[in-house]
């Protein structure tokens, strides 16, 4: 098992975060919401400049780690672009990206992009996917579009694992940012003559959020390792990561909103954007209950591979 990210991948992620900040940072999602058609034009060149589309996450551990680090950096800025989905593109099918979907209403946050998609269910059924026209503006849809599917084959189990893991890295980046924002806020915001951070009730909420975030980080690294080193377990490990990430997101965003107070709902605070644009990642393809149920089905009586999985 390897739970360390390589130095190269960590550095690549750092550079990506800086490049995205230079390209607009927090403003990127705001611009995209104002002019949805511009997001391809504004964001895609930055990602191309980072060599994102030359990465081959399916075949090489180093490139997989770099892809994960890039997704995390994209999440940090709530980048309005399906980076993880594009990086998950399946080998052997001519497509720009992969979307993990679930019945009965397959959908994904890929509206207003001229890209060719393959969709895959958790059980590995692959289809060609075409986005249906948008019926609501991004402020309400967060770029989620319904999809029309045309079946291809049932060979997508490995695709599904990768397609579940990389978006969790995006969500991890969002959790990183939510905690950074909250930490900064409670340090400067003063009430009763002292910073909010001086109140133990505030401190304890922050620690609950950090415990959740750091746990997701460890599971994300494990799931990444499992994709290449333990393919038989990769789907269960991906679902395990997703379950923990969704639980963590619930805690982290709840704490972030609570500690920001009313200012956290205002668009002049980035938390408002981060929180809204985390929604597609947290609800699609499976929400918390459905992910837990799916994981339970996947594990059956076998359990999750671990210290005692062979001793039953």
């Amino acid at each position, binding site marked *: 098992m390897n*739970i360390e990210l390589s130095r190269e991948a960590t550095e690549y992620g750092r550079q990506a975060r800086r490049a995205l900040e230079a390209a607009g940072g927090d403003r990127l999602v705001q611009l995209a919401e104002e002019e949805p058609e511009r997001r391809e034009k504004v964001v895609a060149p930055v990602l191309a400049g980072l060599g994102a589309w030359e990465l081959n996450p399916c075949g090489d551990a180093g490139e997989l780690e770099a892809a994960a680090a890039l997704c995390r950096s994209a999440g940090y800025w709530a980048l309005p672009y399906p980076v993880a989905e594009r990086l998950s593109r399946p080998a052997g099918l001519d497509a720009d990206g992969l979307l993990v979907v679930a019945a009965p209403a397959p959908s994904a946050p890929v509206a207003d992009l001229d890209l060719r998609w393959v969709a895959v269910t958790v059980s590995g059924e692959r289809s060609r996917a075409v986005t249906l026209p948008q019926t609501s503006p991004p402020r309400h849809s967060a770029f989620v579009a319904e999809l029309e599917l045309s079946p291809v084959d049932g060979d997508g189990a490995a695709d599904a694992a990768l397609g579940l893991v990389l978006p969790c890295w995006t969500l991890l980046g969002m959790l990183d940012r939510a905690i950074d924002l909250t930490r900064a806020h409670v340090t400067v915001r003063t009430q009763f003559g002292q910073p909010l951070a001086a109140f133990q009730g505030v401190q304890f909420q922050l620690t609950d959020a950090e415990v959740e975030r750091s746990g997701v980080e460890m599971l994300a690294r*494990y799931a990444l390792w499992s994709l290449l080193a333990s393919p038989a377990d990769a789907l269960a490990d991906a679902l395990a990561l997703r379950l923990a990430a969704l639980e963590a997101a619930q805690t982290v965003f709840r704490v972030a909103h609570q500690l920001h107070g009313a200012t956290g709902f205002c668009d002049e605070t980035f938390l408002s954007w981060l929180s809204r644009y985390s929604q597609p990642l947290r609800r699609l393809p499976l929400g918390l209950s459905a992910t837990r149920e799916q994981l339970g089905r996947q594990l059956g*009586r076998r359990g999750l591979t671990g*210290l*005692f999985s062979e*001793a039953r």
Partner: protein
Amino acid sequence: MGEGATALRGQLRTMVGEHIPADFLGAFTEDPADLEIAQRFCGLLADRGLLCLAWPEEFGGRSASVWEQTVVREEMWAHHEPRGGQYMGINWVGPAIMRHGTPEQQRRHLPPITRGEVIWCQGFSEPDAGSDLASLRTAARPVEADVQPDGEGGTARQAGDGGWLVSGQKIWTSYATMAQWCFLLARTSRGARKQQGLTIFLVPMSRAGIEVRPIRCMIGPHHLNEVFLDEVRVGPADVLGTVDDGWKVVQEVLAFERVGIARYARCERLLQAAPSALGDRWDDLPAELRGRWAGMLVHCRRARLLAYRVLALQSQGRVSPVDTAAYRIAVTKLDQDSAEVLMEMAGLARLAGAGGRRFSRAVQDHWRYAQASTVASGSIEMQRILLARALLAAS
């Protein structure tokens, strides 16, 4: 973890399988036979050089890697700690004596620990000094020069040093009823800060003036006791380290326990055992409960990986308070959350034959023990304070 650690895990499981009964729930039960099982097992571990694996070779250990030590912690805790009360001596009393003890103290105390022959208790907590340990009131009053200490510990009295008389009360002292020695923290003077003026004494529990009263509790016998000290005589030879500078030793002791008990290992073992223990009854469980069971397995993995991160840093000589506190919060919550899920399965397990009933008893034991996990060895609130301090300092 490496091949050595994997082989060690296999060796320990074989030993447990051969020498520990399947229904063993720890050394401290109503049945004295369980303590005998643990004592015998410690002897076997000692014979094979596995009891004090982490200790340096010069003190009878094998200088095992961090990962080998982790395997021992995981396997022992998962199997209801068949080392009984020995782990205290092995994990931190011995190492503290290695670092701060005199050659005479090392000769006297370390060999019996390596042989698994001695049980230590920790005389730290008091009725008014729990998390705020430095507020303790047990006082060591200097004895007039003409009063001789009783000589326990091979006292070689120095001119002008008549030793001390210790009086006070300790509480929550695990294994005090069976321990031969106490690692006792007492106040020898008052400094500008309450952490100053504290001294560690290594005191035999047989010494006059020590009275132990067991506290009946839900965790089980021997776990919690009161220890009353009434003018207990201690001499300079009983002092570990420097007089009035015991707080430094205490902090080191707590650092030895940085990662603490591998609670996730027992949680995972019980969770993984549930389907076979329930047999056909497994399918009668509500789907929602099976989902929570899967979720708890994820939390086990999460806690284990958080522990491994702390250990990886430790093996590089680095300490990360954020990671350490995050792990301890996660693992103690896991203990309690998994216990709730398992308890919901235990009722049905009782209907599933002898294996199911055995599982059910183990789950109930786990639930009782888990209630203390957010209190023992540093409360979860203290961990949150440490984590918050580190997090906010980083901003």
